[in-house]
């Protein structure tokens, strides 16, 4: 017997899409809530991790991609390690974040600015250069004086240097360009397939 609840939703489509992106099957989750209980960031989230997984099972793509939660996961992996069903919750959060970025959904946290700053720094130097990264983050996020107070202290302890390290920058840039091209090519292929 087929029971219809409300509008017709293709429950499987989103789970399948997620499985392709992250390699984990969210349908295995039986909602024990262990991930939510152990999550160190749960007090910052609007939808708890176990709810995110439930919404994914129900194919509620818009709800999860627009949640605060995916931007406040810090990938500590406590959830995935403790999950009795072997669902990689952290991996799902990461995948959802990449999906949200691909669809240009506005991030709910400044962490996206940091990611961008980080990417530019790696492109420029091949290794992290903290003063440049924080500087770039501050410019992007608009908190111009963020953490600037630590600068003299860290300089005195010689924990940051004014000079960046350059390492294999040409190779790193080539790899980054190739990865970027590949990403665009795949997005185009996906578009055409539709």
């Amino acid at each position, binding site marked *: 017997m087929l029971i219809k609840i409300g509008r017709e939703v293709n429950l499987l489509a989103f789970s399948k899409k997620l499985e392709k992106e992250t390699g984990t099957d969210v349908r295995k989750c039986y909602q024990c809530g262990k991930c939510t209980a152990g999550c*160190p*960031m749960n*007090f*910052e989230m609007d939808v708890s991790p176990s709810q995110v997984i439930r919404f994914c099972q129900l194919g509620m793509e818009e709800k999860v991609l627009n949640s605060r939660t995916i931007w*406040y996961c*810090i*990938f*500590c*992996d*406590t959830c*995935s*390690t403790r999950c009795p069903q072997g669902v990689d919750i952290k991996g799902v959060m*990461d995948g959802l*974040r*990449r999906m949200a*970025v691909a669809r240009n959904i506005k991030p709910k*946290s*400044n*962490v996206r*600015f*940091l*990611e961008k700053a*980080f*990417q530019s720094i*790696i492109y420029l130097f*091949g*290794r*992290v*250069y*903290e003063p440049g990264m*924080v500087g770039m*983050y501050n410019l992007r*996020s608009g908190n111009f004086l*963020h*953490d600037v107070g*630590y600068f003299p*202290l*860290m300089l005195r*302890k*010689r*924990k*940051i*240097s004014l000079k960046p*390290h350059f*390492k*294999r920058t040409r*190779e*790193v840039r*080539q*790899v*980054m360009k*190739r*990865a*970027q091209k*590949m*990403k665009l090519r795949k997005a185009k292929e996906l578009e055409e397939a539709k």
Partner: protein
Amino acid sequence: MKYGYYPGCSAKSTAPELDATTLALIDFLHLDIKELKDWVCCGASSMHSVDKVLHTALSVMTLDAANAEERDIMVQCPACLAHVLEAKEVLSKDSELKSDVLEAVGKQVDANMKIRHFSSILHDEYGLDKIREKVTNPLQSLSIASYYGCLIVRPPERMQYDDPENPMVMDQLMSTCGAEIVQWPFKTKCCGAGTAISDTDVSLDLTYEILRMAKNNGAECICVLCPLCQNNLDLRQKKIEQRYGEKLNLPVLYYTQLLGLAFGLDPIMLQLNRLFVDPFPLLKRKGIL
């Protein structure tokens, strides 16, 4: 035992004392470990949310550097360790991701090398017995809470480090050096370093809980292995004290510094003066310095 040392970006910038003490220990214990020439950034905590292929490709470049020198990889930073292990995993079986990554890197890379954290090498390969023989300045009556952070133990099947809820590697190293071990529940609780720049208040909350728990369980100092945890617990401790109106005064030392102290290495070489919470009064009171 022939390892190439992959220090990671932090050890070369915000955690110079970790790099210096690692090299000092390698020298003191006569280990065949030397720094890889051509390592690059592993992509750290943010690249995987940007581009999975690029994230893996960066670590593959470091694997390639180790292949060129025909060495296994010894890692100090848990994030780097997690990412090179992940890259090795990707290269070990055929998948779409693997072919994409190799296309981005632009060459074939094999991943047959062993990849281990320095503390595991000391603990399992060098061995606690040999370490005990080297201890000349025991860390007697110093109560140490070992704090591992999240990345070194999780996911356990990839990291193969120790129990993900109650790891003991550092605790055993410290008790071998004669220290008192604090049993406490937050060994692998996340310190929130990933949000330290973008949401400072959140990370202060998490860090405060960890410091307070260590203090309440009788710790006099904290022993860490992750450069991001160290920075978060040490550099921001003053701000935490102001924010919560509580005096914590818990020095946060790297396990390499504490091992160095127990081996009787020169405190100047161990760069204890680079820590923000001054460890000297405590170490002097205990008769260690």
